[in-house]
């Protein structure tokens, strides 16, 4: 019996995005990372190629996150200093790049000024030589100022800035164009808005080739299936010729997983669920692994054990 030909050929490729700039390119990074370029769905190597494997970004925050002790212990005392934390993530956890969240900019936390935030970015660029993903505080108004300062401080370093939404895309596009950064386009678990933000950016002359899509991430058990299908549909549309969706995708796994009860609370609350110390990193790893299947190119992760597991899977 002849085996039928079942190969699916894609009409287009996912765009290739490089983050970070070497000295020769006007930056100071010791390495850059390149993602995207796929011509097939994840793991379907017989359909096409996936030239650039997914990468892991180390989760760093400028203030200590409200995390369980076992996670803080796993990271070590370095968690109290974003610079030391980032250094450890690169050197010991083996992440490919650093994702820094400037939560300290919020009025409810430390109400740091945009200048203070930019100062930290400058220091971080000196401390580690991997590429950076820079997020604001989470307050849209304040982030206009914070991200503008940080963008200038990292000018020429070809960072990935987070993030452009329906309501702030004009500012974000202007900032990233001026300082030559890549941009995350974010949508609230809505594939249509995801596409719309890209159209809005494109309409404003921001090159689609400089975009990484972020459909918002859901932890396992908290709408994971929604996000999974959205990412899969986005990737599938991109491969079938929808230029607007043919972009690499990012998942913020660490942020979401470490907010869930299932990953954090002990056996005293979840009876029979096993030790949180083991369960937590497994939860993060399983969630991240799921998103790899859906088409994630960048995974932001926190627990060193989970990072190690996923790194092995990718390799």
């Amino acid at each position, binding site marked *: 019996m002849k085996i039928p030909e079942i190969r699916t050929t894609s009409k287009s490729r996912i765009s290739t995005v490089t983050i970070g700039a070497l000295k020769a390119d006007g930056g100071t990074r010791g390495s850059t990372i390149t993602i995207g370029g796929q011509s097939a769905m994840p793991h379907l190597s017989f359909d096409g190629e996936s030239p650039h494997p997914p990468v892991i970004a180390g989760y760093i925050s400028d203030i200590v996150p409200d995390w369980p002790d076992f996670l803080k212990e796993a990271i070590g005392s370095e968690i109290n200093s974003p610079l030391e934390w980032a250094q450890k993530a690169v050197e010991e956890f083996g992440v490919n790049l650093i994702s820094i969240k400037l939560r300290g900019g919020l009025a409810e936390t430390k109400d740091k000024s945009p200048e203070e935030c930019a100062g930290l970015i400058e220091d971080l660029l000196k401390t580690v030589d991997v590429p950076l993903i820079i997020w604001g505080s989470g307050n849209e108004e304040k982030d206009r100022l914070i991200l503008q300062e940080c963008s200038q401080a990292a000018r020429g370093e070809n960072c990935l800035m987070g993030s452009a939404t329906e309501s702030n895309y004009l500012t974000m596009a202007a900032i990233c164009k001026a300082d030559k950064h890549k941009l995350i386009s974010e949508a609230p678990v*809505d594939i*249509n808005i995801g*596409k*719309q933000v890209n*159209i809005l950016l494109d*309409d404003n002359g921001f090159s689609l080739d400089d975009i990484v899509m972020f459909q918002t991430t859901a932890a396992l058990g908290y709408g994971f299936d929604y996000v999974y299908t959205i990412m899969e549909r986005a990737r599938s549309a991109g491969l079938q010729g*929808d230029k607007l969706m043919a972009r690499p995708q990012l998942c913020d796994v660490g942020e979401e997983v470490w907010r869930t009860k299932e990953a954090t609370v002990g056996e005293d609350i979840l009876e029979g669920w096993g030790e949180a110390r083991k369960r937590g990193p497994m939860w993060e790893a399983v969630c991240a692994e799921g998103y790899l299947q859906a088409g994630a190119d960048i995974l932001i992760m926190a627990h060193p054990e989970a990072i190690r597991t996923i790194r092995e899977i990718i390799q």
Partner: protein
Amino acid sequence: MHSVKFYPSNKSVSVRSGTSLLEAARKAGLEVNTNCGGEGICGKCKMIILEGDIPDKVSWPFNEAQIKKGWVLACLSLVYKDLTVEIPKKHRGEGNSTPVSENFGEEDKPHINELHYKTLPVVTKIYIEFEPPTIFSGQADHQLVSNGVKKRLNIPTMQMGLKIIKILPKVLRNNNYKVTITVGLRRDIAEIMNIEGGDTESSNYMVIVDMGTTTVVAHLVNAHPRTTVDSASCYNSQSIHGSEVTGRMIHAERKSVKVLQKLLVDDINRLIVMLCERNNVDIKNINAVVCAGNTAMEHFLLDLSTNNIRRKPFIPVTVEPPPLRASEVGLKVNKRGLLYSLPGISGWVGSDLTAGILAVQMYKKKELGLLIDIGTNGEVILGNRDWLVATSASAGPALEGASVECGMRAEPGAVDKVFVESGIIKYSTINKQPPIGICGSGIIDLLSVLLNEKIIDRSGRFIDENRTSETGEANKRRFVLVEETNQEDNSIYLTEKDIENIITAKAAIFAAITIIMQRLSLKFSDLDTFYIAGAFGYYLNIENAINIGLLPPLPLDKFKFSGNTSIKGAKLAAFYQEAFNELTRIRSATTYYDLLGADDYVEEFKKAMFLPHTDIDYWRAIS
């Protein structure tokens, strides 16, 4: 009791303590704009308190200057003292007091003639000169008249009420046996409705009514010859009980259908009186009222329960009511005048749709056509002479000018076109009157212009701070089309909220179109004709409608703007019995597809919530 005096109408009314200003105004017979039905949501029923005061004033949606001047929302303002109140021009629902002729006549005459119908109007008048009886050839008066009419009209069965039989001897003999007989057709049976002396064939008037959820339109027509005399429209007064039919059905269930019937019948009566007065027509010469409207509206008109229409499986009481005496529902026309409530399809697809299908004649054509009726309920019909599928989607009233702050119906003074000339945004108004608001076609144009000029982005947000201004509310901006410097709040503008309502309306309709096409595995390119109906008055710029994604990007010559097809179809049915009968045929040939069962509707709707559409490549590839 407190007295409330309204300016500029100078009407006073006395009301109980705690009555809202909105109710007081209604009691005084004044029309006030409101979309939410008096729930403090739409912010349209603005009034200014000149004397007196009310407790618990609400500051929204006013600026400081307005609050100081005494601006209030009528629905949220309760009367506890004697008051003197001004209703600003823009916030008066003027329809009932100053109706306006809309486009008809020249435009629909060739349309009707080219259809080659030959049969009688639903009510016909015939002048007969009978041979006076002799001793050798004598028939009873009743039989003489009946046989005469049967012979002339070729009608087998005839009936005559006792009231008419009683007056026969006098009318025949006083007029030398030269009389005009009014014959009404009640399905297959003809009824002699009246007999009068002399030849009055030429004054056989009928009123054709389109009972829209938001707008009621009436045309005064003469059946001999078949001409439209005049037309008038008003906003549907039922809107005080909700801008969509569901809200009204709930109200009907809680209170009674009669409340809604009265509001509707009063609207129609006012329009009839107005049309008659304007054209010197005796109301007694109106022999028929022919009504088209959505099924709920028809139920309200006939005082029928709508309880089951809004509940699964959505069953109406009737979709084909028999002809009735118009006086039975309270319509003030000739006492024996007939009311024809046209046949609809289902609980959610009414006779406005069957009338629309009749008007564009798509059920007779081999080619594939799609008809959309842009109203509060957007309706879509797809098909040809072999099959018809209909669906409907709740769009909201934005494209009829309601739920848009400066919106209005298509009448004189409404901005109906907006365009760019040498880099400047310009507009024109209906009848070149000074601008007082913006109607559906102007709204579509303006949105398209704002998009092209990059004043809004594809999400409908303002992105040009220099060409928009602050509204006074935090982070709220608006685009001012017509600046009025001397009188505050008289400028014509569009807010982001307005734009959102417009996008929602167009998305609902477009999603309905997409789904019905998908269900039948058809592509837009398979369509031969795309008919567009709606209360747009004279004009709709197809290119702009495509640009905002209300319509798919097809070659312009495929589109046919058909105006108010509900009233056109109802008129055809009134003028030609053959056309009337075809409505029944259309009714049984049309399948209704309920979007409530379409689990991809929300997805398609979200895709369309963008300008023109999230699948923008399709627009770019074609246009």
